[in-house]
């Protein structure tokens, strides 16, 4: 099971039998719009608070994932989820609705792959038949908690990123039809001293590079073994740094397609999102909406999703702490 230093090899190949990706208006205007299961035209989802809106996104993504899996909610044996809000309320409250055994996790924006890796591990080890992994974020809850009130007029620097409004969920099963999860590399914290929360891409890039290289070293795979390698939310600045670091370390990324969910989800030239997307929802909706569909229709055979997370809090950066970062990689392949 453990291969190399940090990689789990899933010999039973857990199957993603269903998934759901729900997004807000900005993502719905982006280039991946047609791959999302549900697009909300308003940011507030007609809820009384931003937090309620975020929770609704998660609940809907979970519902869609369960429906697509052709199982019932009570068939789910575990739900693993997390989000950016204090005490991960969006997922805990969703778990209250679901009524299934729940493990709350926090990995900031890496939560998408953290939860998917853990869910795969449980299914692979025979701990359950059906496990759901999910995560969500909302632009306005993130602004409110980490930055300023949403309507506050502050100018964002070009390195800043735009938190994705969206939720993604996937149901993993021991058997069934669908893309399979074959291995996962759990990252370790990398902190090279960036303290600016408006430049999270630069803070997270070394963590992504570390996990990608460890993944290759542990599995014996090379970049050319993947049709696509995507980082979670490094966006324009961080992705370029990651590219350059990998080149410096002589990792042949030219043999594959190397992209970033934060760059894919928006049209950076037309939508005012500064460097690109971020947030738990970013890699979640791109993976569970866009990538899984492309794997299913045969355009992609093997994909490595490297979700990146900046593990700071609003308190820690005010106290001038640097940003500890992490990245978890999960390999998803065509099933059968």
């Amino acid at each position, binding site marked *: 099971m453990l291969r190399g230093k940090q990689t789990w090899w899933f010999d039973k190949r857990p199957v993603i039998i269903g998934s759901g990706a729900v997004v807000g208006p900005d993502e719905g205007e982006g280039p991946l719009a047609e791959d999302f299961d549900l697009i909300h035209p308003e940011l507030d989802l007609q809820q009384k*608070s931003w937090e309620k809106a975020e929770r609704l996104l998660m609940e809907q993504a979970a519902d869609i994932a369960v429906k697509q899996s052709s199982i019932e909610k009570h068939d789910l044996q575990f739900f693993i989820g997390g989000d950016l809000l204090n005490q991960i309320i969006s997922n805990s409250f969703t778990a209250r609705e679901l009524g299934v055994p729940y493990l709350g996790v926090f990995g900031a924006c890496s939560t998408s792959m953290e939860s998917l890796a853990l869910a795969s591990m449980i299914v692979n080890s025979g701990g359950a038949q059906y496990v759901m992994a999910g995560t969500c974020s909302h632009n306005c809850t993130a602004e409110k908690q980490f930055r300023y009130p949403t*309507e*506050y*007029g502050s100018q964002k620097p070009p390195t800043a990123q735009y938190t994705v409004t969206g939720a993604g969920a996937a149901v993993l099963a021991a058997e069934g039809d669908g893309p399979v999860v074959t291995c996962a590399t759990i990252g370790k914290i990398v902190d090279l001293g960036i303290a600016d929360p408006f430049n999270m891409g630069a803070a997270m890039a*070394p963590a992504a590079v570390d996990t990608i*290289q460890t993944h290759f*070293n542990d599995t*014996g795979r090379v970049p050319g*073994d993947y049709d696509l390698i995507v980082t979670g939310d490094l966006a324009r600045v961080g992705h370029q740094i990651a590219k350059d670091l990998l080149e410096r370390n002589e990792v042949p990324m030219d043999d594959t397609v190397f992209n970033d969910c934060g760059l894919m989800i928006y049209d950076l030239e037309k939508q005012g999102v500064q460097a690109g997307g971020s947030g738990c929802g970013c890699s979640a909706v791109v993976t569970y909406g866009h990538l899984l569909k492309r794997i299913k229709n045969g355009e992609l055979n093997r994909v490595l999703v490297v979700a990146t997370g900046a593990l700071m809090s609003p308190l820690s950066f005010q106290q001038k702490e640097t940003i500890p970062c992490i990245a978890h990689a999960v390999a998803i392949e065509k099933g059968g």
Partner: protein
Amino acid sequence: MAGKAADKGKYKNMTMSSKEYKAFAKSREPGRSVLKNCLRAFVVGGLICVIGQAIQNGYMAWLHLTSTQASGPTVATMIFISVVLTSLGVYDKMAQWAGAGTAVPVTGFANSMCSAALEHRSEGLVLGVGGNMFKLAGSVIVYGAVAAFFVGIAHIILGTGGQ
């Protein structure tokens, strides 16, 4: 496609000090156009002040007030406009373009209070709106008062200003 076995498992690890990396990252940051931002701030900030002046002149002409008498209602009008624009979700979009141009005038101060009040309405009127309204504006008031205190002391020592 797969590389030769000899190539596998030997990608060298990151060997970069924090100092080296900061320079590496800094050189890949998009430049911030200080000149453009200054120009925009100057134009927009100036425009807001021109609007304020027009309103003041209006009050003076139509209500026959002196310029001192007109300044109160003028500030109130500017605050009202800012609060309406904030509530309509326009002010923050203007600010992304204008930068300090929308932050420095009294409209920026009103925006900071109004946006915080709106944002925390969901936590109730007392702990939400009341407790958070000065979240951003509070430091302006604190340091404004502190600065005024020291300027006052300086005036006493130098024997300048004051009546």
